């Protein structure tokens, strides 16, 4: 059987295309999503785009490399980026210089801002002070995902940048961020909450039929689970929030449509490991179901070996010969060490390839771009540039 190679994902073309306005990097935790998003943003900026990178939880030194010191929701210009040597060297001198901004998401503040935008000042104050709101805005499973998408919508509306690169939150499952906005908005304008706030008005026959019991059972059980005081907080919160329900739904819908709109591209980031690629597989299927525009898979941390022609088996055999012959001889010791390492790395390359092939077998049409494994953690612009180069030498 002929080996099936996936189509190549041309990230450079994607970022050069002015119609590309949003790139969403998603994938499971620990695969290098943030670094990839930052590297793509930098490369696009140095090719003339005006880019903002929205990150959720960057490594400290990576954040520092982009001039980010705090979670303050403000896009900041990253110094040392622009139409410089890179563009000139490659002969695209006609393009004007680009720019790179970066920001870190402050989810609570983003939530507060939505409340302030949709409620009159008195009511906003009341909501912001409610203990239930405070807990919801800082810890509800999904708030971070929802706020990341909300922020993306805001940045897009602001229209100050021609490319937004967003790094999705490190969810337990890569799929959470698609569901979270709807889950939260479903909750916030859900019937259940209305039931809680206005039992006299809404607690009607429909619920009686479904439940085969009185409305009292619902509140009764909730009181048992949550306690009276908490239920009261929820009720106060919900009545204060009442005017905003429509707003929440509208915003969630807007963001959802934005994700599906032309000009948005999803990149699924994965490491060539089974777990990460399994998540990537689910993600690809899910994006497809939702009609989200998937550009392709970025395979990060791919092991590359300079001496490709020396097989693992030959290398290991040669190491054994050396070891047996002269255990004290310095040149032979050094060569044996090099050969053993090389054999290990060739085996790792083979294992990674097998794993990647399984993905391609299941998704033969998904384009793939590879980023070689870096010897060290990336913590400056040069490191990010280095990663971006992977998109050039295809």
């Amino acid at each position, binding site marked *: 059987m002929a080996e099936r190679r996936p189509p190549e994902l041309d990230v450079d073309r994607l970022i050069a295309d002015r119609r590309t306005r949003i790139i969403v990097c998603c994938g*499971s*935790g*620990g*695969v290098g999503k943030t670094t990839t998003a930052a590297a793509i943003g930098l490369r696009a900026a140095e090719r003339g785009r005006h880019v903002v990178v929205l990150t959720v939880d960057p*490594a*400290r030194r990576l954040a520092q490399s982009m001039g980010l010191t705090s979670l303050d929701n403000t896009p900041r210009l990253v110094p040392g980026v622009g139409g410089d040597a890179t563009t000139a060297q490659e002969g695209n001198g006609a393009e004007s210089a680009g720019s790179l901004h970066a920001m870190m998401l402050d989810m609570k503040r983003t939530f507060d801002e939505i409340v302030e935008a949709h409620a009159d000042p008195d009511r906003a104050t009341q909501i912001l002070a409610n*203990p*239930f709101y405070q*807990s*919801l805005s800082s*810890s509800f499973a999904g708030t971070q995902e929802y706020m990341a998408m909300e922020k993306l919508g805001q940045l897009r509306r602001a229209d100050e940048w021609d490319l937004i690169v967003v790094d999705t939150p490190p969810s*337990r499952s890569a799929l959470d961020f698609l569901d979270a906005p709807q*889950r939260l908005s479903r*909750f916030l304008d*859900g019937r*259940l909450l209305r039931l809680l706030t206005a039992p006299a008005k809404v607690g009607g026959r429909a*619920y009686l039929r*479904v*439940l085969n*019991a009185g409305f009292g059972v*619902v509140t009764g*059980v*909730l*009181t*048992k*689970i*949550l*306690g009276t*005081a*908490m239920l009261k*907080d929820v009720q106060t919160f919900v009545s204060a929030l009442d005017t905003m329900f429509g707003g929440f739904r509208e915003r969630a819908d807007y963001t959802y449509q934005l994700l599906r709109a032309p000009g948005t591209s999803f990149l699924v980031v994965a490491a060539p490991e*089974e777990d990460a690629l399994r998540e990537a597989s689910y993600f690809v299927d899910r994006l497809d179901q939702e009609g989200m525009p998937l550009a392709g898979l970025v395979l990060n941390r791919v092991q590359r*070996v*300079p*001496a490709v022609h*020396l097989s693992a088996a030959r290398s290991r055999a*040669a190491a054994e*010969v*050396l070891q047996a012959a002269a255990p004290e*001889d*310095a*040149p*032979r*010791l*050094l*060569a*044996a*060490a*090099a*050969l*053993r*390492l*090389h054999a290990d790395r060739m*085996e*790792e390359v083979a*294992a990674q390839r097998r794993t990647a092939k399984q993905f391609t077998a299941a998704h033969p049409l998904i384009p793939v771009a590879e980023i070689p494994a870096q*010897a*060290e*953690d990336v*913590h400056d612009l040069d490191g990010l540039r280095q990663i971006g180069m992977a998109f050039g030498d295809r």
Partner: protein
Amino acid sequence: MATRDTDWDGVRLHVVTGKGGTGKTTVAGALALALAADGKKVLLIEVEGRQGIAQLFDVPPLPYAERRIAVGLGTQSHQGGDVFALVADPESALIEYLEMFYSLRHAGTALAKLGVMDFATTIAPGLRDVLLTGKAAEAVRRKDDKRGRVYDAVVMDAPPTGRITRFLNVTTEVSDLARVGPIRGHADTVLKVIRSPETVVHFVTVLEEMPVQETLDGIAELRELGGIRPGGIIVNMTRPLALPPSQLQAAAHGELDQAQLALGLKAAGLDDSATLATALAAELSEQARTALGHELQQQRLDTAGQPCYQLPWLSGDIGLGGLYQLASALRDQKAA
């Protein structure tokens, strides 16, 4: 039963956390196998609904029920005991809780259909965590007539490092919301177990900046909070050094003696030894730079003052065999 010293004698609840991609679930599984040596009975609990344990042990998806999934690590003197697994989801835990305390199972099921459970477990912050840790606490305390405690140890594959403190410190959040009432009472009972000397939190990491930082932050947070004991740091996926430590610096800076390397390669009968030497020197140099980076991260971990265990990198799909290998390494280092 033979007794031997481990670093965690007397601990019954092992909470295992780690950043995504560090192999947290794998390590939790290996720890359960290691703890189940010497005929012990161990429960492995998953709380994030990913069916990671089922995949790890290559068994069908696990329900909300305790199922025997593996035999513990065998030793020279004893056969391995039993490892049971449970996937705890908040909704089932809530229904069980309602049944246990209020005989409300029927109502619970009806409410689930209406989305009330979704509300109560997903939306009401903290409640979800109380229910999940509550299930682990219950398993730790459970007794039967014959042998006292049902489980010798419980291992929890817990949420990632970034969320672990909040996850375990259930009462803080719940008390903000439920100042009184049954959930508050339940949370207090759970916290008693979590804060007892019978519970420790192990951190799984790899020697990269971000996971190491999260590990250090996590340990510092637990210390600051007080009451919940940090446990071991399990450094996963470590690789052996290709070169003796004395040569690392030179290799990292690309100053290896390539002529010498070429000479050695020639002695091994490999063609074009000069070109090959250049390529292999580059490979050695890359690995040396990585190794020096790892050394730096290991030094940072050492400042935490917690016992550190090293687990080797296993290539490809580690499989059940690999899992026992990791279990054995944990036992040898007295992590179990």
